[in-house]
């Protein structure tokens, strides 16, 4: 049972990553936050069906079927969230990875602080973030002011979790 749950959850994860790669090749980067959430919800439904089929083939009417299916789906969700926050998030949003990328491209010539700042600086970072927040519907622009939309969102949840961690660890 252990093997079947792990196998089906990882298979669903690989399918999810493959679909995510295809979808993300064609999206507008300003809508990346919305695309991540939509792909995760869609991935959960697809994984649920895929795991159901695998369990039907291997377990039939076994008493383990429903419990196993719930656990495998839960494991898939954890794997997918870990992949998004740990790997995709690093590639898409990490400042360090972007800076390392610029230094890496300079090869043996290297870069000093001024050259790094010419390629990547606070203006580029803020512009990109505002674009993403507007694209995700978290923020809107009214005249020359940026206004936070007052609604529940995954980003707000992520932000609140971060604030909670800061409080828990006295930072």
């Amino acid at each position, binding site marked *: 049972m252990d093997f079947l749950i792990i196998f089906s959850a990882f298979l669903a994860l690989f399918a999810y990553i493959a679909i995510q790669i295809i979808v993300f090749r064609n999206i507008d980067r300003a809508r990346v936050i919305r695309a991540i959430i939509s792909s995760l919800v869609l991935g959960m439904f697809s994984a649920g069906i895929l795991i159901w089929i695998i369990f039907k083939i291997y377990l039939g009417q076994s008493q383990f079927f429903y419990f196993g299916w719930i656990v495998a789906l*839960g494991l898939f969700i954890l794997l997918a969230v870990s992949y998004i926050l740990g790997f995709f998030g690093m590639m898409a949003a990490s400042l360090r990875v972007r800076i390392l990328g610029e230094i890496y491209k300079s090869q043996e010539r290297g870069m000093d602080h001024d050259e790094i700042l010419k390629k990547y600086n606070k203006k580029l970072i803020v512009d*990109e973030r505002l674009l993403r*927040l507007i694209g995700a519907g978290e923020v809107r622009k009214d005249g020359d002011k940026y206004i936070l939309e007052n609604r529940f969102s995954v980003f707000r949840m992520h932000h609140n979790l971060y604030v909670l961690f800061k409080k828990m660890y006295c930072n």
Partner: protein
Amino acid sequence: MVYILLSLFLFITTVFCHVILHRFLVTRQIRTYKTIYIFGLGFLLTFGILVYFSYNLAGGTGWDMQIPITGSIIYALLSFLFYIYFGNAYLGEDSPSARIFFHLEKGPKSYEEIISYFSDETLIIKRVRNLKDAGLVREEKGRYKATTRGKFMMSIFEIYRKLLSWDKGG
């Protein structure tokens, strides 16, 4: 389900111990990232307990089906997600989006106001130093170059980036 509940219980217990330990050390003026290793111990304990249960529980129903490895993987994944949040809180580095979010919660802001909350020093230069401390870049006469480790890491991200057709991240 017994295994999953046990795994969740042990994870929450480890989080609780970690918070207590970290706060205790902070009161003693000790700030260390190494407290995170407690999750390694927690993982070994979880794995041991779940394997022990698998030899001592009948496992005949859906409720007590024997899934010690799944339970351990769930513990490891939860610890990994916890590590991401703890790492950011420990370093005191709000993501730029989170900082924009934080300021906009106080009221509407203009572009000039938003950009004034950031500096190149904290966003870029500090992170270049972090990369150097982590051994991903080296400094030679004021110029930064990627180390072998840094090159290896970037080559993986480059392949992934090409797969996604993304020119740049960040």
